[in-house]
């Protein structure tokens, strides 16, 4: 979202020379400011994220198990990533999950954010809080609750529906339905998070813009497409990237719901990373697979940066 967007309706005039986005080159004080503001976070990130990432990168060229001295194996681990049928299948599964999860989670979150942000909804604060609950309950108990609902034999949903003669099948054990079901539960678990981000974005849109639009006779859908949606673009860019990263790292919800089954149809890349690293004790291979995931994620994110950037509503304006 750009400055112009926010300020134009209020008769904003561009600031003079001193106020523009003049790069802070030059004075020592300004350079010191840059360093001072960045240093604490960057030191923490470098030590506790950067260094471990470098370690993992080193491991990815070895046969490390976590015990004893690792031996250098060149690019063998990377070759295996692209030749092991299980890994290739898990890449396909991860892509399917991301395609199912990302758009649905974002749309559900946005719609609910718009509703609970609506001035016409009584007790909006109550709804905002309640709808945030799925995000804050622990996943292990949420998985219990979902299986209590969905179990084909003793589940509530089947029991309630049997009066109507409807039976839902064993959705978590059906190779076609398992992934959509897992994605649905993941949407349920995380929409509250994205909803709150959208809410924060919606708060930033000045009421004056809506009022001006109202005077012009714009209502409902038009206000959404002409004002809300464009004004949310920096939030949207953020949400899309964060949701995609989360989708490509899908692990917890699958681990507790299906463990990767049936027939490995819900096995994702991070499930394979966990399996290789913590179960098979092949840290070298797990690290290589992690780096492949990182690079794929980075490429997809750069595409999004470019997309949002080209529309001028960017992430990095």
């Amino acid at each position, binding site marked *: 979202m750009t400055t112009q967007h926010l300020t134009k309706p209020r008769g904003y005039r561009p600031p003079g020379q001193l106020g523009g986005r003049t790069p802070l080159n030059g004075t020592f004080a300004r350079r010191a400011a840059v360093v001072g503001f960045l240093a604490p976070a960057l030191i923490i990130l470098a030590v506790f994220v950067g260094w471990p990432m470098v370690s993992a990168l080193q491991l990815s060229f070895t046969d490390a*198990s*976590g*015990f*004893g001295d690792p031996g250098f194996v060149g690019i063998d681990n990377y070759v295996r990533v692209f030749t092991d049928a299980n890994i290739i299948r898990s890449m396909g599964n991860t892509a399917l999950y991301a395609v199912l999860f990302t758009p649905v989670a974002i749309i559900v979150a946005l719609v609910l954010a718009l509703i609970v942000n609506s001035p016409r909804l009584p007790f909006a604060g109550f709804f905002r809080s309640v709808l945030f609950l799925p995000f804050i309950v622990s996943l292990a108990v949420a*998985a219990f609750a979902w299986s209590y609902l969905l*179990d*084909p*034999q*003793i589940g509530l949903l089947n029991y309630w529906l049997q009066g109507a003669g409807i*039976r839902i099948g*064993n959705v978590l*054990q*059906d190779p076609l339905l398992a992934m959509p079901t897992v994605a649905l539960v993941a949407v349920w678990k995380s929409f509250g998070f994205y909803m709150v981000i959208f809410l924060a974005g919606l708060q930033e849109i000045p009421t004056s813009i809506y009022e001006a639009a109202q005077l012009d006779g714009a209502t409902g859908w038009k206000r959404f497409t002409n004002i809300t949606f464009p004004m949310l673009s920096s939030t949207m860019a953020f949400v899309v990237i964060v949701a995609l990263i989360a989708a490509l790292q899908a692990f917890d919800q699958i*681990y*507790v*719901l299906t*463990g*990767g*089954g*049936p*027939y*490995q149809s819900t096995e994702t890349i991070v499930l394979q990373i966990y*399996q290789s*690293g*913590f*179960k*098979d*004790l092949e840290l070298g291979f797990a690290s290589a697979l992690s780096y492949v995931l990182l690079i794929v994620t980075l490429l997809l994110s750069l595409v999004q940066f470019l997309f949002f950037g080209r529309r001028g509503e960017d992430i990095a304006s």
Partner: protein
Amino acid sequence: MKKLTGALAAVAVTAIGLSGCAGTTDAESSGPVSLTFWHGYTEADGGVLDGIVEDFNASQDDITIETETKTWAVIDDTLLPALSSENGPEIVAMTSDRLPVYATRNALVDLDDFYADSASNTEALKPEAVDMVSVDGTKFGVPSGFVPLSVIYNKTLFADAGITTFPTTWDEWVDAAKKLTIDSNGDGTPEQYGMVLPDHATVGNGIWPSLFAGGGGSITSADGTEATIDSPENVDTLTYWADAVRNDLISPTGVDGIGSDELFTAGKAAMEIGGPWMAGVATASDIDYGLAAIPAGPEAQASTAIGISLAITAQADDAKQAAAEKFLAYFNDKATATEWALGSGWPPLRTDVSAADVSANATVASLTEIAPGTLPLLPGVVNSTDVLTAMDTATQKAFAGGDPATLLAEAQASIEDALSK
């Protein structure tokens, strides 16, 4: 919920033995050696084990062992990071499927010298249980649990169906299950199942290896080097059970070990194959239950063991290894072994402890009688995860209508692949 399966798989305890430097019996002069011991015995068995450790600590002045109780799943998730930075335990109890993995990655100490020393009290250990801790002929642990899977049944439902004795052969078993299966509204989905036979992620992964063994087949060769799942015996076994489940509807399909326990405790299924802990679960759910051996197949009565072993980690230095070995020897002693069996509720690990010795505990005594047909699960197979995944795929697909012969041939190929890695 595979994690839970791991937790369930943990039933027994073991002691740890270590050898290597059997000579250094005198600990360093700087005072007692202190060891950390992680185990996952969280129930009454944990109290008994901690008591055994306390008695050991009190029995001498050189070694102090401190126990930390976690669940089996937590041990598995945290052991690697802890050991890789030497913050882990010197002695660890782990489920039998995990031991070969850690052993081949050099995380555990080789115990062959310990076993060779008569002071280790290992000669009388059950050979099948010792097989469980052997990888490529080298022993890496001492068994602390070797518990046969058994059938738990709902006595009330059996009485309602007029069944008075528990079946002892597969045919009788399926007949009983048919009588116990009730589809009162005739919609093709029974309201009550005679049994629940999981088709994947079964308890301790042991149900299918047990059934295949009952039919005269196996998953891999005894030394764990060759795939043997694609045999005529196994095709017959899988066909037999797929028919019973798909045509006679004696069990729902697509169920795993956890789901199986839930259906049994819900009273939706009259019997299941489970671990001995199901007795406690059934009690908590107000179910009047009985325990019985898995009925005999056409070739054999067989049940796979849920196994736990104690191992010494490579983190222990020579003095600590020697100290840990002393504890393992103490644990293997006949008196301790009897105390452990009685207190834990699991059958004794020594051949010279008889059912009579443990008659004080009825469950232990009856499990001890089942115990002779007990087999270790995939002993010495390092890549057991992939082997079991291949087996589960075949059984689950067969229950969903696939052709057993084709599925077992596919499983054979996957297992050969897994064993050659």
